[in-house]
């Protein structure tokens, strides 16, 4: 466990999460959320919880991104607010 690497991944995760909340285009928000999921996956791998990281990579970055894209395909890409 390397503290500097941990801190780097955590800072990137926070930045990407804030960007995902603030961006207007919903497709970009999905991609940023997927990137957040990937950084959390890296963080968990680095902390030694490989099983949790594997689940995060399979569900968070893989399948849920496809679900969100499918939901956007049937609704609108722009936010109302």
């Amino acid at each position, binding site marked *: 466990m390397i503290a500097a690497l941990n801190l780097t991944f955590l800072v990137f995760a926070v930045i990407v999460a804030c960007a995902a909340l603030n961006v207007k285009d919903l497709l970009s928000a999905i991609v940023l959320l997927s990137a957040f999921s990937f950084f959390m996956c890296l963080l968990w791998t680095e902390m030694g919880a490989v*099983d949790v990281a*594997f689940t995060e990579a399979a*569900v968070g970055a*893989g*399948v849920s991104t496809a679900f969100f894209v*499918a*939901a956007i*395909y*049937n609704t609108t890409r722009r936010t109302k607010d």
Partner: protein
Amino acid sequence: MVRDLDDIIIRTCARIMVPFMQVYGLYVFVHGHSSPGGGFQGGCIMAASFILLATAFNIKEAKMRFTEKVNGIFCCLGVFIYAGTGAVAVIFSGNFLDYSRWTNILPTNPVMARYYGMALIELGVQITVMAVMVSIFLDLVTGGSHEEVMKTDD
């Protein structure tokens, strides 16, 4: 995703990748005992292979290989395997999911009976997770009207 996307590069890549993804899902399931992985992750990877098939080709192509009926059967089959593995232990006067009671059927010692019992549980989890993930994706894409989509395309 419903409309036809005629891109030979995407189609060829998807056609090559899908079998490897499914074999990898089975690998994750089988090695779940000794390494990270298990039924849930393997099921998600297998579901992702079907989602890739549905996005690269179209819904009709994916449903030709994995129809809605088969999907529903798999949903129930996984739960049935899980519950049945536990119920067999109850039949042989054990607790629910007490795998050591499987020694009454299997010619092994209780330690290996627990090993095989956990493998069966993970198999049930994998089948159900795969079928439910594919089902959620198809519902989201088509708005819950697969059969109508198929009829209008014919």
